[in-house]
């Protein structure tokens, strides 16, 4: 059954991401389960090209990023109509290792409703279409990290 009201939160911020607060905002009386994804800055990367990171510098095309975050939330809700609440937050600015940089949280009445898949879909889509970029500052220099997804018409 589709909930009548779906709290949807999406914003770019320079402040700390408060998981307790965001979870509270997307919890309804009918909510029994939440799946939350957060990404953090890695100080040490082992896979692919092993390296160290001093910090990441994030920037966003803010108004479009917030519109595309809303689109990701709409896509989640369309694919998983039982989702009761969605929060999508991207932090920008200079962010050091171990700092949470992004959060996707989805709530539902029960845990076997696709709530994990919905959160997974959310972070994958954010990394495809939300205009945010990061520059990596390492002991050996600076490097813009570029994605590889080319949005299709209508995305």
């Amino acid at each position: 059954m589709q909930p009548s009201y779906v709290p949807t939160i999406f914003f770019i911020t320079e402040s700390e991401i408060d998981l307790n607060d965001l979870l509270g905002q997307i919890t309804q009386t009918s909510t029994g389960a939440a799946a939350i994804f957060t990404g953090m800055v890695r100080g040490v990367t082992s896979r692919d090209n092993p390296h160290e990171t001093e910090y990441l510098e994030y920037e966003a095309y803010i108004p479009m990023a917030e519109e595309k975050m809303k689109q990701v939330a709409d896509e989640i809700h369309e694919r998983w109509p039982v989702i009761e609440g969605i929060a999508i937050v991207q932090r920008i600015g200079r962010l050091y290792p171990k700092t949470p940089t992004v959060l996707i949280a989805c709530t539902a009445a029960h845990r076997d409703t696709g709530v994990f898949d919905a959160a997974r879909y959310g972070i994958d889509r954010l990394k495809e279409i939300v205009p945010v970029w990061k520059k990596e500052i390492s002991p050996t220099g600076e490097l813009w990290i570029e994605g590889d997804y080319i949005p299709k018409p209508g995305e």
Partner: protein
Amino acid sequence: MNKIKLLFFATIRDRAGTKTLELDIPFDLTIQGLKDKLSKDYPNLKESMKSVLITINREYAFDEAVVPANAEVALFPPVSGG
């Protein structure tokens, strides 16, 4: 002429040397035409135009699209947030 606003982000901004640019363009100019014009007028951007993503008024736009009046056009590399 159609006065549009260009926004540059990430590597494209670094190469353009500016965050924004106001530009007068013909009313029938397409995204492809805009890329050609920028490649010609700003040689630093020529290489970037091959893989750039472009949005018109915050929606992804493609080569054949005609740039509408007073558009906000953004140019940036594939996104890498998260």
